Structure formats: C-alpha cells, structure tokens
C-alpha cells in the first residue's frame, strides 16, 4: 500500500509498530550491555559499564528519542480528539509525531548499523528491526523532501504557534499570564541585561515575586500554591517555559533555585526547617542559591570536598565552591559540604547546610560574620546566561548553626541524597527552559523567513528553509509534550529517569534549534542586537548544568536502563 493513500490513523499505527520493532532491538542491546557490565555476583559495575561509554551514550540517546516519539504519538491522538479534523486529513500534531518518529527511527538505525557488534547485534537483528521492510517503508513514506517542506509551508501560516499545547484551563491561564509577562516586562529589558551583564532589574524580580512564582513548587500549607495532596509539576514547567521565552538569564531561571531548594527541603528538612524556610521562599522574601559544584569536582558530586568541622553550636565551613548562580543576591545558600573527615566514605560523608547571608547586588561581595568567618564571592564572566551571575565562592571559617543542617542531626551524611532530590526537579525545569528558548528562537526564525527577501523571494519560499522550519517546529512541539508528559508522571511520584532523558534530549535539541534560527538570519543573526544571537549563546549552557549531558546520559540514563534491562531471553528473537 502506498503511503499517500493511507489515512492518518493507519500512518500512526504504522509508526507505533515501527517503534515497537526498534524498541525490541534496543532492549536486546541493553540486555547485552548488561551482561558485559555485570560482575561475577551479577551486580552492575560502574567501571565495567564505563568501558562501553559510546554504546551507553548512543543507547541513552536512542531510548530518549524513542520515548519522545511514543509521547509524540500519544500527543497526536489527544490533539485529534480535541480538534474537529476530518478522518482523512492529517492534523499538524500528527505531522509532527510522524516526522519525529521517522527521524528518530532513522537516527537509531544509523547508530546501531555503524557498529552493530558493539551493541551485541548481528545482521539478522538489524534486518528484523531497524531494516525491517515495514520500518523502512514507514520512514520512506514520511521523509521525502516534498513532504517535509509541505509541513514547513503549513508552519508559515501558523504565526509562530507550534501545535496545540493541550493544557487544562488553569495551566493554560498560567501560560497565558506568563506569556504576557515575558512580552511586556521581560523582553524589553532582556537585551540590555545580556549586553551589559547587568543584575536582573527589580522590574522583573518584583513582578515575578508579586505574581507568586517563587511559591510554585511549594505546598499551600507552607505558603506556596501547590495543593497539599498532590504535586503539580506542570504549572512550574509552563511558567518556566514562558518566562524563558522572554530571557533565560533574566527571568526563566529565577525559579530553578527555589525549585531545587524546596524539593530538597521537602525531602530532607525537619518540620521545623520546612516551617521556617518554605514560607519565606514561597513569598520570594528570601532569594536563594545552590552551592554544590567545586573547582575540582562538578559532575562527580559524591566527591565534593568543602570541609565542615564541628564547633560549639554548629559547623565551620572552609574551602571553595564555584558556579554558584545568584550567590550574590541570595539571602540563603544551600551548601553541600563534607562533614566527615574520612574522604573514603564518599557520598556518605556529605551533608547539606543552609547558610544565611545578606543579599548583595553586583559582581562581587564579601560577607564577614561577627565571629570573624568570611565568605567572599566573585562572579565568573560568561558568554551568556547573564543577569543572575555565577560566583566563585571562598569559605573561610564560615559558621553555620547546627539547626541549619538539613534534616537536623539525622541529616548528617545524607547530603548527597537531598542534593539529588533537589536536582530531579531542576532537570525537568531545565527541559522547560530549553522549550522556552526554542520557542523564542523559532518565532524569530519564522518571522525573518517570511520577511527577508533573497534572490527575489522571501527565504521562507525556499524548500530548504521550509524543511528547517518544519523540523524545528516538530522537535519543539514533541519536546514540549515529552516534557509535559514527564511532568505528569512526576506528579504521580514516577518519571525520575524520564526527567533526565527529557532534559538531555531537549537541551541538546535547543542548541540545534537556536543554531538554525541564527542561521536563517544570516549576518544579522550574528549581530548582538538581534535576539537570536542571545538565544544561541544562552542555549549552549543548558547541556552543561543540571547534570552535564554526558554524565546524565552515562551515569543516570544508561545506568538506569541497564539496571532495569530485560534479559536476552525475555526480549526474545
């Protein structure tokens, strides 16, 4: 049957079947990787797994794409139910899901067939899955240039909208509100903050505070807006996405720190600590920052060295932290420190502290405590992500009272777990930041493509530009639904690994989308005065923080996939 006469439903079914086939080969490769990473006692060895990094990375990325494609197909179904489309016409959302699935399948095929033996695969596995006629036919039907360009043409008539968002009404209202805040409050100031490396203007900070953003991840009983019964990650995601559309550095990242700190407090804090800190954070009266990374240890969180030594009534901190974003303005720092002198204890020797300090504007500060302890901070000059400033911090006998150890006396040695609890929220939030930048970049790209005339026609009239717009919109729309779906999983207490997957995937995608948006602008894209140059630079940081891409792919995603891998027998042939 030729693809052109298949109705949308049949095409989506075909996509689902192709994904099933490819999931099978991925499951088999994971089973194989598991066998190769097991010690004699059957346990997975991190060192053995590390011998297969390239395969691990490729499997992590492939599984992320296939998972995204599945959420994409589900999205297409929901979008059709919510629309008035006829059964024989493809909706925009179906086109996104189909193109995304086909490209994902094609990419997985490339990776596996480049080095099948490394994945434990032979020819027969490939021909039964990624090379299976049904899978190939599906890709061949979806990927012709004309078809991709046709989607680009459709996008040109969409005013920058990238598919239905399918939010329930209160989340839609949040989106609506913060879309306007971004346009009316953030965008007019974003360029100046970026070009002159300014502090975030009070006009933005006060507005975000007044609208209640800092309480978005905090339950009502602690002064936030979350229901006390159930988490609502989607609200945080939507607000972050829209603020980031205005600016990553000057608005969209403001909620990240309270997100991390409140998740850590909710996980590890004593009732007293929650009651003391959460309401102040929720109201935005207390700004916060996270000091985990050190000059010598970043991804390797378990190895942090900042020293905490017991003293009368509390602890003394000595050592250095780095990249502490917002460390100047913050009134409280969440600090991961080594409370046990025996370094061989690894992560079990780490604890978390909340250090109160004055809020300082600018790029450098020095805080001297009454007892003589000193904390100095100096902002690191960066190519982008400007506004909050990321500080090098030096701790010289800084005193923290013992009631400020997260979790109280029971919290000693648990700092690593609390950090991870905080970071889970930070990851899904960072996926949302990636969406915001992509949307901003896509809108600029689209409008420039409509207006800029080259060789006599708007560049949007050309096939190559249409293909770019189609692919950008597709990855953005599916990335968004992937993120929203993971957010909903997290509301049910699941989705930890998926949060890493979607962070990994959307941040990587944001680099490419902002790159294409800049490219469509030609020379103007490279000018500082054009917002896409900022989007490009800003997007670059997303794959570094909140879990560096490689660390996430290898240590979190691949590790978790391997831990939970089926056996070869279970996968079958």
């Amino acid at each position, binding site marked *: 049957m030729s693809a052109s006469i298949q109705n949308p439903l049949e095409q989506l079914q075909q996509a689902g079947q192709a994904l099933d086939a490819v999931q099978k080969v991925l499951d088999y490769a994971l089973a194989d990787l598991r066998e190769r990473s097991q010690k004699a006692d059957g346990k997975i060895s991190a060192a053995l797994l590390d011998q297969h990094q390239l395969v691990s990375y490729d499997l992590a990325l492939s599984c992320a794409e296939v998972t995204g494609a599945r959420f994409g197909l589900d999205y297409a179904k929901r979008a059709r139910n919510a629309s008035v489309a006829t059964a024989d016409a493809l909706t925009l959302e179906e086109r996104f899901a189909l193109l995304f699935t086909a490209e994902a399948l094609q990419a997985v095929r490339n990776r596996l067939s480049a080095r099948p033996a490394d994945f434990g695969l032979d020819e027969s596995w490939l021909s039964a899955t990624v090379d299976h006629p049904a899978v190939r036919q599906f890709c061949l039907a979806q990927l012709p240039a004309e078809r991709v360009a046709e989607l680009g043409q459709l996008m040109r008539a969409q005013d920058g909208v990238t598919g239905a968002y399918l939010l329930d009404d209160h989340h839609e209202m949040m989106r*609506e509100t913060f879309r306007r*805040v971004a346009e009316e409050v953030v965008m007019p100031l974003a360029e100046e903050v970026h070009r002159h490396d300014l502090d975030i203007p009070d006009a933005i900070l006060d507005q975000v505070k007044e609208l209640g953003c800092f309480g978005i991840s905090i339950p009502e009983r602690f002064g936030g807006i979350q229901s006390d019964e159930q988490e609502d990650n989607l609200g945080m995601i939507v607000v972050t996405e829209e603020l980031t559309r205005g600016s990553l550095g000057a608005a969209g990242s403001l909620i990240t720190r309270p997100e991390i700190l409140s998740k850590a407090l909710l996980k590890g804090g004593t009732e007293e600590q929650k009651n003391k800190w959460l309401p102040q954070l929720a109201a935005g009266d207390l700004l916060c920052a996270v000091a985990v990374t050190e000059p010598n240890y970043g991804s390797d969180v378990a190895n942090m060295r900042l020293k905490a030594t017991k003293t009368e009534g509390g602890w003394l901190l000595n050592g250095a932290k780095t990249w502490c974003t917002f460390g100047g303005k913050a009134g409280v720092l969440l600090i991961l420190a080594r409370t046990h002198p025996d370094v061989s204890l690894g992560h079990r020797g780490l604890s978390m502290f909340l250090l109160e300090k004055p809020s300082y504007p600018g790029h450098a500060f020095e805080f001297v405590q009454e007892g003589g302890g000193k904390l100095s901070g100096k902002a690191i000059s960066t190519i982008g992500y400007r506004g909050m400033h990321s500080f090098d911090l030096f701790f010289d006998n800084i005193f923290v009272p013992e009631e400020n150890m997260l979790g109280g006396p029971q919290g000693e040695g648990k700092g690593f777990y609390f950090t991870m609890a905080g970071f889970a929220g930070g990851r899904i939030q960072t996926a949302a930041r990636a969406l915001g930048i992509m949307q901003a970049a896509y809108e600029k790209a689209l409008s420039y493509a409509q207006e800029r005339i080259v060789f006599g026609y708007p560049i949007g009239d050309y096939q190559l530009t249409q293909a770019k717009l189609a692919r950008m919109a597709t990855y953005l729309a599916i990335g968004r639904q992937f993120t929203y779906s993971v957010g909903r999983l997290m509301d049910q207490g699941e989705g930890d690994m998926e949060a890493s997957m979607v962070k990994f995937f959307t941040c990587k995608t944001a680099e490419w989308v902002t790159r294409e948006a800049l490219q469509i602008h030609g020379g103007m894209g490279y000018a500082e005065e054009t917002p896409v140059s900022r989007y490009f630079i800003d997007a670059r940081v997303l794959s570094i923080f909140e879990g560096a891409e490689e660390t996430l792919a290898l240590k979190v995603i691949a590790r978790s996939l391997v831990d939970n891998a089926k056996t070869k027998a279970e996968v079958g042939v």
Partner: protein
Amino acid sequence: MKILVAVKRVVDYNVKVRAKADGTGVETANVKMSMNPFDEIAVEEAVRLQEAGKAKEIVAVSLGVAACQDTIRTALAMGADRGVLVETDAELQPLAVAKLLKAVADQEKPDLIILGKQAIDDDANQTGQMLAALLGWAQGTFASKLEFVADALNVTREVDGGLETVALKLPAVITADLRLNEPRFVKLPNIMKAKKKPLAVLKPTDLGVDVTPRLVTLKVQEPPKRQAGVKVDSVTTLVDKLHNEAHVI
C-alpha cells in the same frame, strides 16, 4: 454595591484572523481564544472598585459555548467572586446578548453593569447601549474614568472633540474604553483560587429568551492582499499617481 461584568470569548488579539474557505465566517478551529481585551478592562475596573471598598460582589457573566467557562475562570482569577454562563451553541447577535444580559440582571439585581465598549471580533459596539435601553437604566459609554461623587457616578467619556463627563444615577450600564485602566497580570495563587469559585450554568430557555439571529451573514472574505509599493522620484510623479492611478486626490 453589586457589579455585573460581561466577558466575551473571542479570537485572541494576537492571532491573524483568517476567513474560512467557504466564506461562512472566520476560522476558529485550533485558533487561540481569549477574553475580549475591552472586557478585561471592565473586569479590572470592577476589581478596583471592590478593592476601593465601593463594591461588595462581582459577578462575571459570559454567553456562548461551553468553552466560555475558561473566559469566566480568567475573570474569577482576576478577582470576580462568581460566574454565570448562559450556555448555547447558537450564534449570538448583540440584541440577543443584550436580552440575555437583561434577564441575568433581572435575577442578579446588580447596581452597576460594566461591559467592554465592543468586542474585537465583530466590532459591533451595540450590546451595552441595547442593554441600557432594555433595562431602562442610565448609560455611560466609552468610559475612560469612573468617579463616585455623592450618590452619582461621574463617567468621563472619550468623544470626538475630547472628554465629556456625565453624571449617572445608579443602577447604570458602563462600557469600558481602552484608557479606563491597565488590567493586571493574574497572580498564581489567584489562578488556583479561581478553580474553586462558583460558576453557574444556565440555558437561554431558562431565562425565557429567544436568541434567534435577526441578521444574516452573506459572506466573510479576506481583504485583498496589499500590493507592493513603488518609489517615485519626484513630488510631481507622486501627485500624478495619486490623482490618475489611485484616484484619491
């Protein structure tokens, strides 16, 4: 004092409106809908009156399809206390809307009704005036300022020559102009609270109103595409072209 505000669900002001291919109307499938901007101003004014201690209760009313509930929720998040939806899939023209609003007003007995001066979809600018006539109440249209002086409501109106102030006795109908106020951003906690505020749904038949349209839309079409301009080299050519080609002078 009790205030009724009318809020209409319209195609969002950011959306480029497109005519349906068959010429029966504008495309609304998959198009973003929001509260009519003038109605937002009306709600904002009501909320300010409440904050100033002048109003006790604000009721937001919308008329139309079930999805108008979203529009009412927005009004509730902005500060209205409860909502009423008169639900119908029928096309509603200004007279029908005015009659429905009158029926709601008969039940609710507000002291003041605030509407937008017009809706940005059909730009009819009739509903407020018709409503005032049907109720037999005073009206202050195109309001750019409201001020209570003793027991009168002074309404500053934007008219052609400048500003005109009229003193109204309550109950009255006000229609909001652009400069009456700048609507606030909705706060997150209020969005959550809005979910729990009461919203009643009625049918036109419950109110005994016949909403059958009296006007027939013949055709909706897009304006002709603008032609690319030309540069002329002198004022003489410009005048010549304006006179002989454009026929405007």
